[in-house]
């Protein structure tokens, strides 16, 4: 064994280097663009968060002082910031499962259901995703006015609808439902693509063995969907932790900050010129996103 090892090791090393070169060749376009347009700005903003950069420094961003973790400490004494974190958590904890389960149900239904109208259903569920948020928000606002369509309809069945967007307790659920409605389409599309990859012969075999639809779903389809499930949960989680547009156009963070999201708060801090503070807030959010993603990876990782 030992006398043929050195040439084999050398050949192996050469192959390894060759593979590395080829791999980096594949990765190059991405890496260059990524480094220039993503990594560098992120690095700069991370640095911003440990300085005292404010509006007066806008044109000379390097002439600022290093202040260590002061911004972060200040954030955790900031009531509105902390409140926004709770709101964001509420949104994610309820919104993500709602969206994922809803999308999965719809995708499965559309996939195996009415073949003729399948296209229509797919398109139909995807339309909320494609519509511009301003149009969506305008429409929902109209519908949710105290004298708007929703309450008019409820009135027909004898229920006096509340002032949905004015209520500190109802506003957030409304936003969550709206977000789920809007984003279900995206996740549905992803699940649909993935459902195509479920081994059909396994399903057939199971059917022959007498397994029920639910059993087949649970033991064959779901496991096969694992990598995609992870992907869907991660992107929905990441997106929801940064939810911004819905409160921005619907409620402006109100009523009484009930729908103030962390990204909205950060955005308004940028607006006031508190650049370093806002950067710090963003990185706190980053940590939250990181934590959630890690959790999801732990729970849903398949053995690739």
């Amino acid at each position, binding site marked *: 064994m030992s006398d043929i090892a050195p040439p084999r090791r050398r050949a192996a090393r050469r192959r390894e280097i060759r593979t590395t070169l*080829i791999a980096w060749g594949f990765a190059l376009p991405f890496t260059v663009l990524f480094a220039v347009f993503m990594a560098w700005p992120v690095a700069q903003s991370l640095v911003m968060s440990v300085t005292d950069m404010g509006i007066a420094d806008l044109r000379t961003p390097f002439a600022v002082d290093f202040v260590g973790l002061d911004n972060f400490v200040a954030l955790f004494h900031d009531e509105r910031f902390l409140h926004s974190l709770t709101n964001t958590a509420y949104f994610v904890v309820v919104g993500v499962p709602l969206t994922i389960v809803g999308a999965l149900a719809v995708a499965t239904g559309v996939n195996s259901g009415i073949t003729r109208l399948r296209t229509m259903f797919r398109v139909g569920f995807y339309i909320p995703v494609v519509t511009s948020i301003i149009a969506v928000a305008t*429409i929902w606002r109209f519908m949710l006015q105290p004298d708007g369509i929703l309450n008019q309809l409820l009135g027909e069945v004898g229920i006096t609808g509340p002032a949905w967007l004015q209520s500190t307790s109802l506003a957030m659920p409304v936003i969550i439902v709206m977000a789920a409605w809007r984003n279900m389409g995206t996740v549905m599309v992803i699940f649909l693509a993935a459902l*195509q990859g479920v081994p059909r012969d396994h399903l057939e075999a199971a059917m022959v063995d007498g397994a029920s639809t639910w059993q087949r779903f649970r033991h064959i389809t779901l496991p096969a969907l694992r990598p995609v499930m992870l992907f869907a949960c991660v992107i929905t989680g990441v997106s929801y932790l940064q939810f911004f547009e819905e409160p921005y156009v619907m409620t402006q963070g109100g009523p009484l900050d009930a729908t103030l999201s962390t990204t909205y708060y950060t955005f308004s801090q940028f607006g006031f010129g508190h650049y370093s503070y806002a950067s710090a807030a963003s990185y706190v959010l980053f940590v939250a996103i990181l934590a959630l993603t890690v959790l999801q990876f732990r729970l849903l990782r398949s053995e690739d």
Partner: protein
Amino acid sequence: MLFPFVWMLVGSVKPDVEIRQVPATFLPQAPTLDNFVQLFDRLDFPRYFANSVIVAGTVTAGNALFSSMIGYALAKLEFMGKRLLFGLVIGMLMVPHVVTFIPLFIMVSNLGLINTLPGLILPFLVTPLGVFLMRQFIGGIPDELLEAAMIDGAGHVRIFWSIVMPLCRPALATLCILTFLGSWNSFLWPLVAALSDDMYTLPVALSLFAVGQNGTQYGLLMAGAVVIIMPVLVLFIALQRYFVEGIAFTGIK
């Protein structure tokens, strides 16, 4: 489910006065195409449409290609620095976008790309999301398929192009739709990166003409929203049959 969309369609043919009316009406009482006429009249529509198409189209194509390339490398090849690269990609996915705006603008400005189409395209030509998606999907392709091809003497490029890409059609279709949509509807970056109105994209132009300091012109907004949706829907309908191409992973005989 579709009610808001229907309401939008219906609203696009109503005059503003009727849209705002209380109590609200559903079917238009005096349907008019005026909103659409205004849309094409006041806005330099062909130009904004072209800008949007070029930007979104290039971003989508770029993503489809480059994200797949690196997705393949990350999923199927062993190489030095792989963990670091993937870690960075995932890391970037999680950074809130809002924080990178000003540094990104300064970077693009230093490159002389402000107010140019490349300036609108390049920062988004590849996205961590795309890489993540393709890596997951390609990861699901059985290694045996690729090994068989390698034994037959195919190099990685050949394998990538002739075997992996075709198998990835559902994933590619998904990626294209998601990317196109994100780019097509994006507002904030095209707003700050365009200095003159010949570089505006559709969402920016629509906001300019429909959303005023004192009130929104709802009819124009709805008409604009309806028109803006169309290309995405068309793309979706064209691509959605690929979602059902089921041969990918069944049976490697």
